[in-house]
């Protein structure tokens, strides 16, 4: 990839990011943050790549810690987000279904 291809991707991603994320309501900002933590775990890919060409003890240690950090982000981030969102999704509206929509019909 040329530098300018990468910059193009970056700029477009900025616009997509702002567009999509500005639509997330305040209510869901904490799960959004833990989910972006998890997506940030993508850096683990970098750890996997650099550990491949590591060839002395210091590089082994650096690479392994980077992979562990990334895995914490991915696994912990997605799991805790799932836990939180489960609380929101638990019951959309057990009562309101009767009074709100029922009245119209």
């Amino acid at each position, binding site marked *: *990839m040329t530098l300018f291809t*990468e910059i193009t991707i*970056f700029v477009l*991603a*900025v616009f997509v*990011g702002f567009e*999509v*994320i500005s*639509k997330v*309501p*305040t*209510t*869901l*900002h*904490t799960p*959004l*943050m*833990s*989910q*972006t*933590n998890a997506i*940030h775990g*993508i*850096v*683990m*890919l*970098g*750890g*996997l*790549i*650099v*550990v*491949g*060409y590591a*060839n002395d003890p210091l590089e*082994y240690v650096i*690479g*392994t*810690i*980077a992979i*562990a*950090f*990334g*895995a*914490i982000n*991915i*696994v*912990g*981030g*997605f*799991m*805790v987000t*799932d*836990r939180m*969102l489960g*609380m*929101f999704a638990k019951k*959309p*509206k057990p009562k*309101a279904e009767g009074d709100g929509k029922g009245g119209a019909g």
Partner: protein
Amino acid sequence: MIQAVFEPGGDAATALYIVAFSLFIVGIKRGTHPTTAKQGNLIAAGGMAIAVVTTLLLDGIGNWGLIAVGLGVGTAVGVIASIRVQMTEMPQMVALYNGVGGGAVALIAWSEIRHGISLGEDIPLDELIPVLFAAVVGSVSFWGSNIAFAKLQDLIPTKPLAVPGQQVINAVLLIGILAACVNIALNPGDPNQAVFIGILIAAALLGNLVVLPIGGADMPVVISLLNAFTGLSAAAAGFALDNVVLIVAGTLVGSSGTILTMEMATAMNRSVSNVLFAGFGGAPSGGGGGDGEERPHTSIGAQDAAIKLAYADTVTIVPGYGLAVAQAQHAIKEVADELESRGVTVNYAIHPVAGRMPGHMNVLLAEADVPYEQLKEMEEINPEMPRTDVAVVVGANDVTNPAAKNDPESPIAGMPIIEVSEAQQVIVIKRSLSPGFAGIDNDLFYEPNTSMLFADAKAAAGEIASEIAQL
């Protein structure tokens, strides 16, 4: 050990990476509504699985023992932490995740530099510059996030810790970092590793020094900002490694952190630089001065509060971080249930910074099974306040202080507040008249339509609920 399938940078791997980041975007898009967000999270996790498996199958991936150790340890820590964490502790958790994410990026950058040195060729500038950026921002995020974690966990004082000459030290560190980066960039054939380690250390110091002076009330801004930083550092690592999924994913995280940072700063009516460099948010100068005199206020008990609430038509509950600390969300929900069974309309008014990170209070109330339809944002509830019979303030302080609106001299002047003083009656459940994070007296407590209920939020809410049940 595993047969390599994909060429790094080859068509197949790139195509799978494109699928992966598309799933991230779809996942976040689904996160715009509480009913679809859980599914969106799973979609994003699926994208991550594709990205990780693709990478493991790349040609040149090796040292499988180390990969197994890293994955094993990281997964174990992640699983245990995500199961054990209390919802009140989410800000610490996110701070810690920001930290390890930034740390991973800094370590990868260090590895890349060592790899470049060992190859003995010129490192191209379009790789070297992103590596340096990733190293600096990653290291700042790692240490800054650790300090934020320590403050939120009360391991170190949440009050602003000012070091004399702070701004000067920070400026010197920043100039030193830039100079060292230029030094490395001018020697792309043989970058000095000692200089690079110096950069990592200076950035670590900078991360510590920038976050240490920031007070507890400003944590929502700081956490969001560190989130944005770690995202940008991941995007930089993507430039260095020519990896498209890293660039897109990092940028998405960076956008998210940036948007949240701006929203939090707006909610406090302050600029981001003011949060970072003013050292407010703990105890501003002269804040403790007003303790001497006792101003007249009305104090009531749980039974009186129960009567006021039970005979109201509309009740708005204004929760603050104190509610979270007292773990009173479930007890408050009981009060709301009792009131609703008597036909009272109950809403919750959530200030954008009611908690220690964006959206924190919503999660705590969701944990207590409060339906999200009852969670009203500040702009939505303020026009309703004059028609509200009783506003109940639980563990919130500064975000209800009418001084923000009425007193241009106040340190919090101009901060958007939940206008509870507009309600017919106000009940404030609080341990004492002590000031909140901003360190200033709350005029609300002394208004004629305000009644103070001095108690622990959880105990008081429990009593009120049982009193209402007996009416």
